[in-house]
């Protein structure tokens, strides 16, 4: 009581800390134990790395890992490029004194994909891109394709284009949202200074704007990569049966396999969490180092 009266801050955050400890770290810890074959409530207390060994020796795992990397990498790159391109279009519009209402209208339109849940985005792309989907039917109607099954397979395809396109559509606005405020802080007067000293718009972008937004861009790329690497909904909807992306592969192992597969599923989750944590740490380190320099003298 006296602690409360004194206003001990630790006590006030205790419920939140307990919640995180129990449900996040608790779950993680339980998963870790089970991945090593330890299930205390089942009186199974023998430590084993069998699940990891079997997983790492399985061709399915490596195929799945490769596909997951490819889909995440391409989605991240495409959304990164599209996001930065759009942010720069808005920035140049502001720099050249275009009507600011038009720019803000574009900005708002570009933000809409952010409010659509990933699952809904998956369905939307499924309906749009499958061979019996809207685009294929429109193409058939206008005579662009002879038969609707001549339309290229873009969803549930082995390369993962459906997933890549959906992620790009969803994540490019996120990248724009992350870097546009940084670009917006660049003084118009800096552009005037740069012009007087012999720089044109292209040189200004490459010498001033890009170095200033690079840290924010890199951090957002890392976030997108980490997310697409471990997200479940879109690969579940738009992926193929084999090879599956790691999160789907883990889900299937967990729900459809036996007891042994369950340990493998959890081992897979631990590997996913480990890779994501490494990426997160790397992103933090890079952005911390860069942001320190970038933030200097902004005001």
């Amino acid at each position, binding site marked *: 009581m006296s602690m409360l009266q004194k206003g001990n801050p630790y006590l006030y955050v205790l419920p939140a800390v307990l919640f995180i400890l129990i449900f996040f770290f608790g779950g993680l810890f339980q998963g870790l134990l089970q991945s090593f074959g330890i299930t205390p409530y089942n009186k199974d207390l023998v430590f084993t790395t069998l699940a990891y060994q079997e997983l790492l020796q399985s061709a399915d795992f490596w195929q799945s890992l490769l596909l997951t990397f490819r889909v995440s990498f391409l989605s991240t790159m495409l959304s990164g490029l599209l996001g930065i391109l759009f942010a720069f279009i808005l920035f140049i519009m502001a720099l050249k004194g275009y009507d*600011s*209402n038009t*720019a*803000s209208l574009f900005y708002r339109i570009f933000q809409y994909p952010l409010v659509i849940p990933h699952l809904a985005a998956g369905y939307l792309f499924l309906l749009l891109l499958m061979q019996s989907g809207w685009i294929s039917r429109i193409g058939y109607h206008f005579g662009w394709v002879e038969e609707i099954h001549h339309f290229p397979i873009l969803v549930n395809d082995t390369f993962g284009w459906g997933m890549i396109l959906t992620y790009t559509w969803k994540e490019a606005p996120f990248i724009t949202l992350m870097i546009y405020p940084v670009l917006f802080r660049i*003084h118009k*007067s*800096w552009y*005037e*200074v*740069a*012009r*007087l*000293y*012999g*720089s*044109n718009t292209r*040189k200004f972008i490459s*010498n*001033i704007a890009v*170095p*200033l937004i690079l840290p924010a861009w890199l951090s957002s790329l890392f976030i997108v990569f980490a997310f697409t690497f471990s997200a479940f909904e879109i690969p579940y909807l738009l992926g193929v049966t084999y090879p599956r992306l790691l999160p789907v592969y883990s889900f299937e192992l967990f729900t459809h396999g036996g007891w042994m597969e369950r340990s493998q599923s959890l081992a897979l989750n631990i590997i996913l969490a480990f890779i994501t944590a490494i990426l997160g740490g790397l992103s933090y380190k890079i952005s911390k180092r860069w942001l320190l*320099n*970038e*933030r*200097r*003298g*902004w005001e």
Partner: protein
Amino acid sequence: MGDLVITKMSKKFQHQITANDSSSNPPFQLRSADLKIHEGEFFGIIGPSGCGKTTLLKCIAGLISPDKGEIFLGKENVTHVLPEKRQFSMVFQQPLLFPHMKVIDNVAFGLKMQGINKKMRWNKAKDMLQSVGLSGYEYRHPSELSGGQQQRVSLARALLMNPKVLFLDEPFSALDPDLREEMRELVKLLHQKLKVTVLLVTHDREEAFQLADRLAIMDEGKVLQIDSPKLCYEKPVNVQVAKFLGSKNVIEGEVSDGIFRGKHLEIAYTNYAFSENKGWIIIRPELLKRIHSEIISREEGIFNFTGRITEVSYRSGFVHYKVNVHGQTLYVIESNQSDLPEVNEQVTLQLNMKKVHFIPQMGS
């Protein structure tokens, strides 16, 4: 290179409604400005805030396209030359250094844009930093410098380009008084050393008077007078110039039969040479001298007033006071050598009418 000549330059801004603000900015017009700035001259454009001096400067620099008018540098017409090709430099009110670049890279930015190799541009930047007293600061970031140091870097960046004209857009207004004085000295020194043509824009009279060889006085988008600082102050062409440059005693009236008649004051005024007899006399505050009544001079052209002091203030060695002379308030500034005058004290003021300036109404 030659003189910088601006002819009939005008620019009109319409009502502008910004996206985040529904209020509209009032329209503004820069009216047909003509200027001739000699090569190597330190030229000042001075006027109250919002009078159009920065617009004029940016039109000359090419950062704003003028609606009409031409700019010549020597014989070359540069009106339609892109700003990046004009070889002009500018120091703004804020240092506007690029935060992600070290001091040396900021200074050498212009040379980098010209494609000069790193070694050469760094060497030149180091020399220039030495000239502005910032040796040893090369590898710091702008945020590690004080406001005055940042402005010095900005100045070094501008001078390194060896510009045909250097624009200074109120460059010291964000600095504290000591630093401002220091920077003015530095700019004056560098101007003498490098013989660069400088165009300074400021609303600070003291700064303009201290630095400029000649001044253009602007108000409401119009150039009102171009002269040396002394002439602008002592012989203003109209009342706006007189008031802006600190003339406190601007008295409206009429001259007839060798006498100036104001609302409250009548003064013998013989050195009158205008066809218009209505206008204003400008009595500069320092022309009025407090004298003892026993030494009143009866010389020709010397006029004596008797009045009562209504207000006194002491400012760094000078005493400023207001004297009510038959209902007319006269503002007096004199160096303080004895006790301060007191409010309600009766004083006699002496004025040499030969130094009084008359502005005829039609000329205003």
